[in-house]
């Protein structure tokens, strides 16, 4: 009996290693940490005021406090998006790898839902995508049949993950524009003040200010690149996930003719059905 089990698991492992879809899925899941750039930049966005403060006048600092509150209130929701996307990808990878992956706690935490949506520039589509992703993860926790489970998760997770990644992409655009204005406030203040520090007794001040200006320039240029890179990483994961979705086996009954099956699936992949907005229609 034991030997049969051994042979069976060897066969399973071989099948596992040989299935290109499962390999692809595992590779995609391995790239989930690349989404972490979004987290760092969310945090940087949240802390904008801290960095701006030394350069602001008293009146400007007062105005900034209100914006600072908005940024802090929205921050947990940004992180929730990232958590949902990475948890889904990791769960997908775990299914494809045959491991048991306990993501019950994480989903429970995520299900405590997102509150401040109206203030973040996210649309209903994004919210819906997020909640569907959470529901899907809850269900996947009980399902173990490998390729079938992976396919089901890819199929059902397609729109929610795409929607969540879209939301992250949109937010990154706002972060980047916020970053541009922060940069121009900080560097602009230095640029405006330095020319007036030209008296002989101000030489030390002018030298320190110019050196500080150079550091800040470097910092902002690097941050600009990080925004671009984070957006590219999100796009890459979105594209690979979409490619996996297009490569799914046809659903039983959908296309009985094998010759037509691929065409039918890729057509469905090219034009994914829109997410239903009526919440009552969903389980």
């Amino acid at each position, binding site marked *: 009996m034991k030997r049969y089990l051994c042979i069976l698991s060897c066969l399973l492992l071989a099948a596992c290693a040989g299935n290109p879809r499962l390999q692809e899925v595992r590779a995609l899941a391995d790239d989930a940490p690349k989404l972490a750039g979004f987290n760092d930049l969310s945090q940087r966005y949240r802390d904008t005021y801290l960095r701006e403060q030394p350069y602001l*006048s008293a009146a400007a600092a007062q*105005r900034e406090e209100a914006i600072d509150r908005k940024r802090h209130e929205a921050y947990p929701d940004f992180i929730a998006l990232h958590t949902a996307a990475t948890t889904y990808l990791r769960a997908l990878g775990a299914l494809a790898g045959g491991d048991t992956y306990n993501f019950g706690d994480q989903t429970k935490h995520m299900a405590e839902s997102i509150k401040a949506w109206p203030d973040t*520039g996210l649309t209903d589509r994004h919210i819906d995508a997020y909640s569907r992703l959470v529901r899907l993860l809850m269900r996947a926790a009980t399902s173990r049949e490998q390729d079938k489970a992976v396919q089901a998760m890819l199929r059902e997770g397609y729109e929610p993950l795409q929607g969540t990644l879209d939301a992250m992409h949109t937010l990154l655009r706002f972060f980047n524009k916020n970053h541009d204005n922060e940069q121009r406030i900080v560097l602009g203040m230095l640029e405006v003040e330095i020319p007036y520090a030209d008296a002989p007794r101000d030489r030390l001040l002018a030298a320190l200010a110019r050196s500080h200006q150079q550091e800040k320039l470097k910092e902002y240029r690097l941050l600009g690149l990080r925004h671009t890179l984070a957006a590219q990483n999100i796009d890459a994961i979105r594209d690979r996930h979409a490619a996996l979705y297009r490569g799914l086996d046809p659903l039983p009954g959908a296309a009985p003719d094998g010759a037509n099956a691929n065409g039918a699936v890729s057509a469905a992949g090219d034009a994914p059905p829109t997410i239903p907005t009526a919440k009552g229609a969903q389980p």
Partner: protein
Amino acid sequence: MSLTASLPQDLETLADSLSASADELHQRIMRGIRQQQRLEGSHIKGGPAPLTQGAAQALFENEVALRQQANSLYADAASHSLEGMGTTLPELLRLSDQARVAIRHIERVKELAGISADLLAVAAAIAAARPEHLVAPLESLKKQLAARQTQESA
């Protein structure tokens, strides 16, 4: 088109426009500062008016405020904050574009301060969703821009 039509994209566009106006204002401030450095007080006709440190600081304060309003709109980008506003976004966009162009060409510091302050008041009314605060600066901005246009064509 109503204000609530296609948010938050429109809000983002408006914030972009405010950022661009701030960019223009910054260029103008820097030209004024360079003029001040070059002339050491003796004014040459035709170029941008030179700026004293106090004037430059006051104008930069307007620039910062414009950027803050833009960032505030990015942070909102939400429809509910604009419901019930008594004007349309396209008109605001057009005006702020016009203001941006005007800032580029203004030679006199007083006009520069006036137009940037009006633009700022408009932006603040939008960001705070206070339509009742929008009318006065909007009219003043229109008047200033119109006056500039007749002045240029004359």
